[in-house]
Structures are given as structure tokens and as C-alpha cells.
């Protein structure tokens, strides 16, 4: 067991973290935290088991925990979004827009969608990484795909001209 095994996982982990968090800084912070956790838990990893899946599992636990500790900020986030971050500002086919749409998904749906598509992971592996039943993987995948589709189909022209009204801006799909 050597750090070299981890090093070859880094590009993939970073890319996935980038898509998950929607942010380059957060991505590398998350990968860094994952590596630190991995170092501490190194003894728990069984030789021969899937290192990549194990690292993804660690990363997801960290990511969801971080979000959980952010609950008060997130609650404020929803309110402030009405004013500062327009919830439905998505359209077009650029990578930036795709990125923004992804960030509009609930974290657990985003994770399933990214593991299945970006990482091309088998459904059963996704269930293991996220520690959820297979049926939950499929239902989250379904919701994520449909919501992404709806978000990406919103016309860009809608956004700029619409005055921000708290009631409409706060209307976010859950």
C-alpha cells in the first residue's frame, strides 16, 4: 500500500469533486480533506478492495457532513438567493451553464447523477459508495435527470428581464 496508488486517483477525484461542488477551490479542499481522512483510515482499507470506490465513499461522507454543518448558512442562503443569486438563471449548452444547473440539484441527486454519468459507475457501486439502497439510487437518478433536463431547457431570455420578486425567486424545486 503506497501513496502512489492514491496519486493516480487524484485527477479523477479532482474532476469529480469539481463537478460535485461546482467550485474549483472547494473541489481541491474536498480532495485534500478526503486524502487526510484516507491517511487516518488507511488501516481500514482492505487490500485488494476497490480503492477508487473507497475514496469516493470517504469523499461523499465528508461532503455531506460539510453541508450538514452548514445548515444555518444554507437556510440563509435560500433567503439571500432571492436577492443575490437568481435561482433559475440557467440555459444554453455551455459547460458553465451545465455546471450551474448541476448546482441547482439537491446534493444527493447531484451525487447519483455524477457517479452514474461522469464516473460511469455501476448502479450497485453507486449504492455502496453512497450507502443507500439500489432502489434509492434509481429514484434519485430519475429525479435528477428530469430536473436537469427541465433546468437546461429554460430559455435564457426569461432570466434577465424578469424583475426579482421574492416569491418567484424563492420558488425552488425541492
Amino acid at each position, binding site marked *: 500500500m503506497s501513496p502512489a496508488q492514491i496519486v493516480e486517483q487524484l485527477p479523477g477525484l479532482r474532476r469529480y469533486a469539481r463537478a460535485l461542488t461546482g467550485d474549483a477551490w472547494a473541489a481541491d479542499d474536498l480532495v485534500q480533506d478526503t486524502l487526510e481522512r484516507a491517511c487516518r483510515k488507511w488501516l481500514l482499507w482492505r487490500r485488494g478492495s476497490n480503492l477508487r470506490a473507497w475514496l469516493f465513499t470517504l469523499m461523499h461522507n465528508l461532503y455531506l457532513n460539510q453541508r450538514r454543518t452548514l445548515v444555518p448558512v444554507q437556510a440563509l442562503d435560500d433567503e*439571500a438567493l432571492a436577492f443575490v443569486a*437568481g435561482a433559475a438563471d440557467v440555459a444554453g449548452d455551455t459547460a458553465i451553464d451545465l455546471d450551474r444547473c448541476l448546482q441547482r440539484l439537491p446534493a444527493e441527486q447531484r451525487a447519483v447523477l455524477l457517479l452514474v*454519468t461522469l464516473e460511469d459507475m455501476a448502479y450497485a457501486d453507486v449504492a455502496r459508495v453512497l450507502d443507500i439502497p439500489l432502489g434509492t439510487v434509481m429514484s434519485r437518478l430519475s429525479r435528477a435527470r428530469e430536473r436537469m433536463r427541465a433546468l437546461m431547457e429554460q430559455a435564457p431570455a426569461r432570466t434577465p428581464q424578469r424583475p426579482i420578486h421574492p416569491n418567484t425567486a424563492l420558488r425552488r424545486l425541492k
Partner: protein
Amino acid sequence: MTASRPAPLHEDELHALVDGRLPAARAEAVDAALDPSAREQAEAWRQQREALQSLHRDWLDRPVPDALLGAAGRLHDTRAAQRRRLAWAGMAAGWMLAFGLGWGLHGQQAGGAMQAAAGAPPARFVRQAAVAYAVYQPEQRHPVEVAADQQEHLVQWLSKRLARPLTVPGLQAQGFELVGGRLLPGEHGARAQFMYQNAAGQRITLYLGALDGAPLETFRFDQQGPVASFYWVERGFGYAITGELPRPALQALATVVYEQLQHAPAQPAGTQQIGRR
């Protein structure tokens, strides 16, 4: 309608088809059995899958930062984790400040919505700039949506969204490097926020967007708690330089930005001389 119809299609199989998780024979059967709406759905998901698979592909080829390589090889450093926790605390404080500013605006007009708050459009504009500053300035992890290393993309993207060619002023001579930018909503279209940071970690933002109203003949100054702004309006566009700096320092930066925007090549011809001087 054929007599030998396969078992009704379960949605899970549609996902499995799109994700290439079905055995070849079953994939063929499922594909043949798709009705037009299922086919359309599968096609949309397939396109989405392809788009997601190409997302951030360039990250696979980027050099891994030394910090991560180091972390891969050493035991964890508690102090680093602690520093990050402190960064989160700073971000939360920013939200509280923003909320306070927003609440103050709200209070200035009884019964009014926040964005309909007191004052002429430029006054509202600069307060929105102050709120946007207060929200994003303390962030360690998400200060901007698109980082300066993608400056070309950033400018293209924001120009498209604001429906006007934008120029990012350079403030290196004043010691401020561009961190990046983000897109925010405004009253008459999108607003853009560019963030800069100096070696001491101080941050300022340039906030801009369409703004109705007469051109302001001079810089205006506005102070919201600790957050100061200089702002001006030109050619139907508002600009605000915002930061927690002494007034003269901020004014000097605003002047540099103003000058650079005056001489930006992307500005429409013949409209250069509107404004002061």
C-alpha cells in the same frame, strides 16, 4: 401491435439502456420496444449523459497541485483542517453581514420588497453591490463562479449574459489580482461581479450591470456599515467599486477602473466621451 410484446418497460431499464448497463440482447429488445415518448426521453438523457461526461474533462490533464500530492503522502495535518473550519466561520459571518445590510434596506421602505428599497436606481444599485460584496468577499471556497484562470471564458460568458461586451480592468499596478467573477441577478437584467484580491488578502469587487437613469456626472460615495463603494452610471450601465478600504484608497481604484473602461476597445464607437471631464 405485435403479439409477442416484451414485458412492459420499467423506467429503471430505460436508465440502464442509456447508461449502457443492459446485456446486449436485452438492450436491443428494450430499444425496439420504446414508444415515441420513451424514445424521446431516452435520447434526452443520452445527450445529457454525454454532456456531463465531457464536463471538466480538462481537469484530468491538469497538473495536480503540490498540496494534494503532499497530502497523498503524509499523515493528516490537524492545523489545516482547523484553518478550513475558520474559513467557514468567516463565510458565515459574511452572510450575517449581508443579511444585516439587506434587512437595513428592507427597513427603509415599510412594506416594500427588498429590491424595491429606498432611493433612486443608482442608490439601490450601489446597495446591491454592497450586499453582493458582503456575501462573497469572505468566502474562501466559493468567492467566484469562474476563476481568473479562465478569464477568457469568464468574459465571454458574462458578456453574453449581460448582452454587452465587457472588459475586465487590470489592477495589478495597484496590487490587486483578479480572482474571478460571478453572475448575479439585477432589476434590469443580469449583473456581473468581478473580485480582486491584494497580497494582504484584502478583496474588492467591481459590480456592474444595466441601470436606468441619467448618467452620474461624478463618482458617488456610499457607505454601508464597514462596506464602502464608489459608483457611477454611464451609457445605461452602472458600475460600483466596493470594499472595506479607506475612502481615498477606494477612490483611487475607482479612478483607475473608470479610466480603463473609458479606453476599452470593446466599447461602442462614438460613445466614448459621455461622462465627466
